[in-house]
C-alpha cells in the first residue's frame, strides 16, 4: 500500500512540476528563448504570495488574484524592455541575460526576505484529505494543484491551437519577418508570450510556497525540474510536458520510498534514461 500511495502522491506532485515547466515550454516554443531565471521567478512569485497573505491577511488562493496579474505584468515589461533586445541569430545573449537576472533575483530576495525558509500558510486546507478505499488518503491541496495544472495545460493548449493569440504565437514562431508583414508586432507578441509564461509561474510559485518551505536559493532547482519535465515530454508538446512532470514526480517518490536520500537522484535518473532511449523526449512536436 505504501507503494501505491507513493505513486499516487508522485502523480499529484507531477502536476506542480508541469506548472513549473509549462511557461518554460511556451516561451521556448514561441521565441526559442531559454529563460534561466524561470525558477527564480517561481520563487519570486512565492515570496510575493507570502507578502500578500501576511500583510493583507488573504488566503493564498485569493492572493493568486493579485500574484498572477502582477507576474504577467513583470513578464510583459521584462520582455519589451530587456529580453527583446537580446533576441537574434545568436542564442547566447538571452542565456547570459537571463542568467544575470537569476543572480539579481536571488540576491534581491535574500536582501529583502533573508535566507530563512518561509512557508505560505493555507490554514485548514493544508491538512484536509479525502479517504480512498484501501487505507489511502489524498490531500485536498495536492489534488487541487493537480486539477489546476491539468486545467492550465488544457487552457494553454486551447490558446495555442484555437485562439487568435495562439495563431499569432505560431506565426511569429514560424517566420518572424513574414509575421511582421501580416501586421503582427513581434515585440508585442513576444511580450504577451512572456506575460503568459510568468502568469503560469505566478500560480506555480504560490502552490510551491503552500506545499513546501522555500528560501531565495531554491530557484535553480525548480528550473531543473521544469527542464526535465519539458525534455521528458518532448519539446513543443504541452500534454507531453504534463506527462513529463508526472514521470518526474512518480520517480522521485518511488526513489524516496526506497531510501529517503534517493528522491532527487531517482528523478534525475528517470530523466537520463528517457534522454538515452528517446533523445527528443517521449512525444516531441518541434525539432
Amino acid at each position, binding site marked *: 500500500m505504501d507503494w501505491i500511495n507513493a505513486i499516487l502522491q508522485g502523480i499529484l506532485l507531477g502536476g506542480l512540476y508541469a506548472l513549473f515547466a509549462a511557461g518554460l515550454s511556451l516561451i521556448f516554443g514561441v521565441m526559442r528563448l531559454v529563460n534561466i531565471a524561470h525558477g527564480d521567478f517561481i520563487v519570486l512569485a512565492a515570496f510575493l504570495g507570502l507578502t500578500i497573505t501576511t500583510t493583507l491577511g488573504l488566503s493564498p488562493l485569493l492572493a493568486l488574484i493579485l500574484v498572477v496579474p502582477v507576474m504577467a505584468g513583470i513578464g510583459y515589461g521584462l520582455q519589451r524592455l530587456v529580453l527583446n533586445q537580446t533576441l537574434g541569430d545568436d542564442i547566447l545573449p538571452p542565456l547570459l541575460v537571463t542568467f544575470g537576472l537569476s543572480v539579481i533575483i536571488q540576491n534581491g530576495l535574500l536582501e529583502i526576505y533573508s535566507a530563512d525558509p518561509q512557508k505560505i500558510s493555507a490554514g485548514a486546507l493544508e491538512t484536509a484529505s479525502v479517504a480512498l478505499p484501501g487505507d489511502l488518503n489524498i490531500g485536498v491541496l495536492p489534488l487541487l494543484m493537480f486539477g489546476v495544472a491539468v486545467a492550465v495545460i488544457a487552457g494553454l493548449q486551447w490558446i495555442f491551437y484555437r485562439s487568435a493569440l495562439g495563431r*499569432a504565437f505560431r506565426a511569429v514562431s*514560424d*517566420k518572424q519577418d513574414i509575421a*511582421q508583414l501580416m*501586421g*503582427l508586432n513581434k515585440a508585442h507578441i513576444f511580450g504577451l508570450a512572456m506575460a503568459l509564461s510568468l502568469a503560469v509561474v505566478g500560480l506555480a510559485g504560490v502552490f510551491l510556497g503552500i506545499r513546501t518551505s522555500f528560501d531565495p536559493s531554491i530557484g535553480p532547482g525548480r528550473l531543473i525540474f521544469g527542464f526535465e519535465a519539458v525534455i521528458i515530454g518532448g519539446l513543443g508538446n504541452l500534454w507531453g510536458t504534463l506527462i513529463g512532470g508526472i514521470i518526474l514526480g512518480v520517480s522521485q517518490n518511488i526513489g524516496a520510498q526506497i531510501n529517503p536520500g534517493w528522491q532527487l537522484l531517482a528523478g534525475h535518473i528517470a530523466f537520463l534514461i528517457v534522454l538515452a532511449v528517446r533523445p527528443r523526449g517521449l512525444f516531441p512536436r518541434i525539432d
Partner: protein
Amino acid sequence: MPDALLSTKALEAHYGDFQALFGISIDVQPAEVVAIIGANGAGKTTLMRSITGLIRNKPEMVVWKGRAIGALRADQVAHLGIAMVPEGRQLFQSLSVEENLMIGGQMGRKGPWTLKTVQDLFPLLQERRHVPATALSGGQQQMVAIGRALMSNPDILLFDEISLGLAPIVIKSIYEALPAIIGEGMSAIIVEQDIAKAVSVSHRVYCLQEGRVSLQGRPDELTREAISAAYFGV
C-alpha cells in the same frame, strides 16, 4: 505626379557594408499595376523589402499617400494597407491553410475580401482548409499566399517573384486570375524575372539593373531591344 499612391524617392538600401540600391525613384498611381523587372541581384527584392519596412530606411525615402513611411516597422506599414505576397510563398508551416488566411485578416481592415470571398476565388482553399499549409503543392501554396495578402484588404498588393519555382501551367493560371485578384481600384507592383508575363498585365514597367532604374515606361512605348539592353546591361 504629385498624387501618387506610393513612391520611393532616391531610395538607397544597404546590407551591412554592401549597397544594394542606389537612388531608386519609382511611383505607383491609384489603381495602377506596375511591373518591376530585372535580373537576379538587380535589387528587386530589396526594393520590396524596403517598401514593406522589412528593411528600414530614412523616413522620406518611401512616401505613402503623402506620408513619409520609410522608417516604419513592417507591421506598421502593413496596417497602412500595403500587403505583400513574398518570394517563395513563405507560408506559416505550423498553421493550417485556413489559419494562414486568418493571420492575413487579423488586422481587421474592412473591404471586399473575407475568408469567404477568398475561398470563393480559390475553391480549393475551402476544400483543404484544415490541411497544414505546407502540405499543398507549390501552385496551391501560391494561392494561399495570395489569399493571405488579400485578407488584409490592402490598397496596394506587392507580388514578389510570383512565378519563381512554379510549373508553367500554374504560372499561366495565376496570371489569368490576376485581373480578378487585383480587381477594381487596387494598385499592384509585380516583380518578375519573366519579362513577357510581367509586361502583359501591367500599365507601366520599371527595369532595375544593379540597384538602379535602367528603364521605365508604358509597355507599348518600350521595344524588346530596349528592354533587353536595360535588363542585361549590354
